[in-house]
């Protein structure tokens, strides 16, 4: 099978290239970058030195059509104008931008910009295999999730429909590393300004809220609105979502374990982390960065009726490139964990 990537110069693009280069059943034959056309990929991604001499090609649907599948690693808004040409030449697409995650063009416009191809929404499947494995098998477009959304949705999905959950007071307090902002730099990302901060940059109205509310509402089949606050912390990779959920009645651990195990017991990339000892008793990005795992754990508050769910993942892998490759495996009929069930170096 042949795969290509449009716009592979960013951090997500770099992880996509890495994951596809080590994928045993897919060959990465086509990579484009408007800014770095003709340049060696390894000059943009130093970890690929000694690994590949691939160069960035120009963007052309004809060249792309030699592939079986194309990943879109360009920013939102650019993607929506390229994807139609790729579909037209019969390609399957995995889009890592936000352009095909949302079902409602007005909500899309509120968080991003006017959408030029809303007619394609119904061809797109939200790129979380844990929720949409069957639909992804026949999807033409898989919309890989936003990293924050992936962490929050995976943490809440198993219990959001339980009757003991108060759906009106759900808070997601997320901590994320600096690679979440991609390669564009600013005075805010200038090291003396960025190192050692706990910066509440998205205290309200974070863009990923749209897809979190969308997916949770689809599960409970009525509109849900949660609160999301994001903080930039001293990590490069990694997200920890601390999800505060109020309970409508007293419950025990097993009332949480049951739905969690029911939904995720057979999921290769979900790990339950709730242990009595050691440095990694609850989900912590430190134990998951570099891998395609999402670690999920929880604690029940004994003083007030509150459940705290912890969900940790690597924003560039399970939060982007890893879920994208997982979707590709499903779309191309390849065993889902192929090229992804790899232990990360630890500690990094």
């Amino acid at each position, binding site marked *: 099978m042949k795969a290509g990537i449009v716009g592979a110069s960013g951090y997500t693009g770099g992880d996509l290239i890495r994951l596809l280069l080590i994928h045993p059943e897919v060959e990465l034959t086509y990579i484009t970058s408007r800014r770095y056309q003709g340049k060696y990929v390894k000059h943009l991604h130093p970890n690929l030195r000694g690994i590949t001499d691939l160069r960035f090609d120009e963007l052309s649907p004809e060249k792309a059509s030699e592939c079986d599948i194309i990943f879109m690693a360009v920013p939102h808004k650019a993607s929506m104008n390229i994807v139609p040409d790729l579909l037209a030449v019969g390609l399957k697409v995995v889009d890592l931008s936000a352009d095909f995650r949302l079902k409602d063009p007005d909500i899309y416009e509120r968080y991003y910009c006017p959408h030029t191809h809303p007619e394609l929404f119904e061809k797109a499947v939200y790129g979380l295999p844990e929720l949409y494995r069957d639909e992804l098998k026949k999807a033409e477009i898989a919309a890989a999730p936003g990293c924050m959304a992936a962490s929050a949705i995976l943490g809440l999905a198993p219990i959001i429909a339980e009757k003991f959950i108060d759906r009106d007071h759900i808070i997601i307090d997320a901590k994320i590393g600096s690679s979440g902002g991609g390669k564009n730099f600013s005075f805010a990302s200038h090291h003396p300004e960025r190192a050692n901060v706990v910066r509440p940059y998205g205290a309200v109205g974070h863009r990923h809220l749209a897809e979190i509310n969308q997916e949770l509402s689809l599960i409970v089949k009525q509109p849900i609105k949660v609160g999301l606050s994001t903080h930039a912390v001293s990590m490069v990779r990694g997200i920890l979502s601390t999800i505060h959920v109020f309970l409508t009645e007293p419950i025990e651990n097993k009332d949480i374990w049951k739905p969690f195990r029911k939904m995720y017991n057979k999921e290769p990339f979900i790990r339950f982390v709730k242990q009595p*000892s050691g440095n990694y008793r609850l989900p912590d990005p430190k134990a998951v960065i570099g891998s395609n795992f999402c670690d999920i754990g929880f604690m029940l508050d004994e003083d007030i009726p509150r459940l705290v769910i912890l969900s940790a993942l690597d924003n560039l892998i399970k939060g982007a490139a890893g879920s994208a490759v997982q979707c590709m495996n499903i779309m191309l009929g390849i065993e889902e964990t192929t090229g992804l069930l790899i232990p990360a170096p630890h500690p990094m």
Partner: protein
Amino acid sequence: MKATCIECYFEFEVDDDVMLGEIIECPDCGTELEVIEINDKEGEVVLQKAESEEEDWGE
């Protein structure tokens, strides 16, 4: 023999020659569990949490 961790409800297999009072570590959450009953008919063992001192976790 089948066993279910009483902390995280993970179901797992234990060796058939498991003994009463034996300490088993849950493969999923690592809790130390003590075998308090062996039910040959059902092919199941009953577990209870074994005492272990609380470890400091960097408060």
